[in-house]
């Protein structure tokens, strides 16, 4: 949305209004249990690993990544979705219009493009996410293709441009994204009005784009405009923002801007959630847990090693083997002796992709998917 003065002022007010500070300088985010606080204005919140014990991640612990201040709360009755560009019937849809279209539910894993950035060496600018800028939810709403068909989308349009209700402060660019029309028209791409059956709230109420299998940058929140176009949007968040080197770079080196590509899809990845890195456990039976996901593919296998990667065993996977959504894994382990153990996890997807030992360093720290690894101290019982 192009900000006008009133909207900028509203965004400032919204930013100033939350989160609330208490006397001890701690920050409270309404509706969220305690989260790893990377930033409070705007909110950048990471899910602590102890909450990752269910296939569906509850909204009250789901990670939050805001580029721009959260827009002032949208009145559902006043909400309008503007459709412009290469359509036969440009105009506006209300929330009721969107609710009248056939509603679909798609379980899908949403991951911030920079999840795991903190693991890259050398360090790169940006939020230093660990393992928790990811979550799995059941998203419900009309198919984006059905919404576009209502407006009579021109089949010759190559891209769909989207904007949300959030606006940049000062001269910060607006968060506008563009995606190939083929992905926009995919039957799993939704305009979600519900997240786990509830209001998406901070996650993009009243309408949030769901782009299953693609990184979070494409999942525009508070969607207010859909514009089929012939050309790709040229704004900051399409170029140079959220691009990845076409040819891998020596760590720490500068990219050639002409050789950066738009990120589409996600690599295969697993994360260990229990036991946590550098934790102490007592000698005896324990369960190693985690989750694994693979963008547009499903997870085929997760292997776990408890000896630094010398020997590997297949972990047990949760039953649902779906594209777009993660699978939880567990494996029982009884250490033979006290000591320090390096536990590792390695996922393989249905296309045969396997997690690498060393993910390619890139200047923005995107798409970390190295074989996961934690150190655990096993003490005498």
């Amino acid at each position, binding site marked *: 949305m192009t900000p006008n003065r009133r909207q900028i002022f509203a965004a400032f007010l919204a930013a100033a209004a939350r989160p609330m500070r208490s006397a001890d300088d*701690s920050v409270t*985010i*309404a509706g969220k*249990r*305690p989260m790893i606080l*990377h*930033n409070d204005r705007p909110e950048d919140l990471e899910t602590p690993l102890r909450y990752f014990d269910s296939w569906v991640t509850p909204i009250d612990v789901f990670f939050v990544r805001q580029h721009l201040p959260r827009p002032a709360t949208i009145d559902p009755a006043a909400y309008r979705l503007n459709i412009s560009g290469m359509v036969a019937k440009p105009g506006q849809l209300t929330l009721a219009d969107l609710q009248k279209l056939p509603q679909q539910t798609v379980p899908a894993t949403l991951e911030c493009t920079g999840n795991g950035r903190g693991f890259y060496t050398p360090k790169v600018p940006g939020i230093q996410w660990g393992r928790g800028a990811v979550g799995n939810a059941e998203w419900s709403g009309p198919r984006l293709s059905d919404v576009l068909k209502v407006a009579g989308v021109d089949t010759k349009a190559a891209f769909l441009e989207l904007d949300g209700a959030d606006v940049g402060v*000062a001269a*910060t660019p607006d968060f506008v994204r563009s995606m190939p029309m083929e992905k926009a028209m995919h039957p799993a791409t939704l305009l979600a009005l519900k997240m786990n059956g509830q209001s998406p709230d901070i996650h993009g109420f009243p309408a949030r784009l769901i782009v299953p299998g693609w990184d979070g940058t494409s999942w525009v929140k508070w969607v207010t405009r859909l514009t089929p176009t012939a050309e790709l949007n040229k704004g900051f968040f399409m170029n140079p923002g959220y691009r990845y080197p076409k040819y891998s770079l020596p760590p720490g080196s500068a990219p050639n801007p002409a050789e950066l590509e738009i990120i589409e899809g996600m690599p295969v990845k697993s994360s260990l959630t229990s036991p946590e890195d550098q934790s102490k456990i007592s000698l005896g039976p324990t369960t190693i847990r985690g989750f694994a996901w693979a963008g547009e593919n499903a997870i085929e296998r997760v292997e776990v090693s408890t000896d630094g990667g010398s020997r590997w065993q297949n972990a047990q996977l949760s039953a649902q083997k779906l594209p777009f959504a993660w699978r939880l894994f567990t494996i029982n382990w009884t250490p033979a002796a006290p000591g320090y153990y390096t536990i590792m996890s390695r996922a393989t997807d249905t296309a045969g992709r396997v997690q690498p030992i060393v993910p390619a360093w890139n200047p923005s720290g995107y798409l970390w998917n190295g074989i996961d690894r934690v150190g655990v101290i096993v003490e005498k019982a």
Partner: protein
Amino acid sequence: MMRIRLALICLGSSVAAIAADQATLDLGKKEEARSCLACHSLRIIHSQRLARAAWGRELDKMAGWGSQIKEREALLEYLVANYGNDKPMPVPEMSANGK
């Protein structure tokens, strides 16, 4: 004797440098609050550890996005001294329960 004198000179000059730097660092800290807080809180800065060149690029980016940075050198010195890539990563902060 010569060596001791040299060492004393070095010590003296480094003390002078630290003393001079403190005023710069104080100025940089003030400049951080003045030029950054209008748009975002400081946690997103303080949770990072970057080399001088990388901090410099961040300041250029923010200036391009409308931040009115007046004391750029002092701000850069302050960031490098406190949040340089030779400093350990901070322990993650937690938000309070909002439920």
